[in-house]
């Protein structure tokens, strides 16, 4: 299935693009997606943290993804 991946902040510098389509074998969890991304972009594991948000909500590793979910790579936030 196809997931839309959004990258922000330093995660965008690492993936090289804001929008990226990722192909995953179905079923797949957030944890599975993380493994794929860290393998493809090893510098993600150098960050202080990387959270994943599914459809604008922080998501646990165990959450199952659906076709066309919008997943965002959230590196350490620094607003305020």
């Amino acid at each position, binding site marked *: 299935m196809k997931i839309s991946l*959004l990258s*922000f*902040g*330093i995660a965008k*510098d690492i993936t090289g693009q804001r929008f990226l389509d990722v192909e995953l074998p179905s079923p797949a969890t957030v944890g599975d997606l993380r493994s794929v991304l860290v393998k493809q972009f090893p510098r993600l594991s*150098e*960050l*202080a943290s990387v959270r994943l*948000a599914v459809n*604008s*909500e*922080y998501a646990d590793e165990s959450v199952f993804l659906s076709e066309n979910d919008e997943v*965002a790579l*959230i*590196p*350490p*936030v*620094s*607003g*305020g």
Partner: protein
Amino acid sequence: MLDIQLLTTPLDTQACIQFVHADDAGGIDVFIGTVRNATKGKAVLRLDFEAYEPMAIAEMRKIAEQALEKFGAKKIALHHRVGTLEIGEAAVVIAVSAPHRAAAFDACRYCIDTLKETVPIWKKEIFEDGEVWVAAHP
């Protein structure tokens, strides 16, 4: 009563204060986060903020709703700016009214402390000789 905004234009502190003003509130606390001219002794030229906008607004709203509920605050205005900010400009303004001052202080502090942990907004410091995403690395 909430006023949650993500803006590309200068923040209006007075508008935030006016929004939270209420005749049955005795205390208003306001926090203004401004761009400092240095980080760890190194001169900062300016900051670039970017946000995952729909999620940032949703998270800001969650925080403000929690603050109303946890502290019994009356009204909260929470405005965050994105884009390029010069030294001294406000990146965030949070105004909270409450019947008594302790609740106003506690709710305002809760908002800024939690915002800095959960709201998907990122700040890049621009120096003379390079740029750094704040807090990205351990």
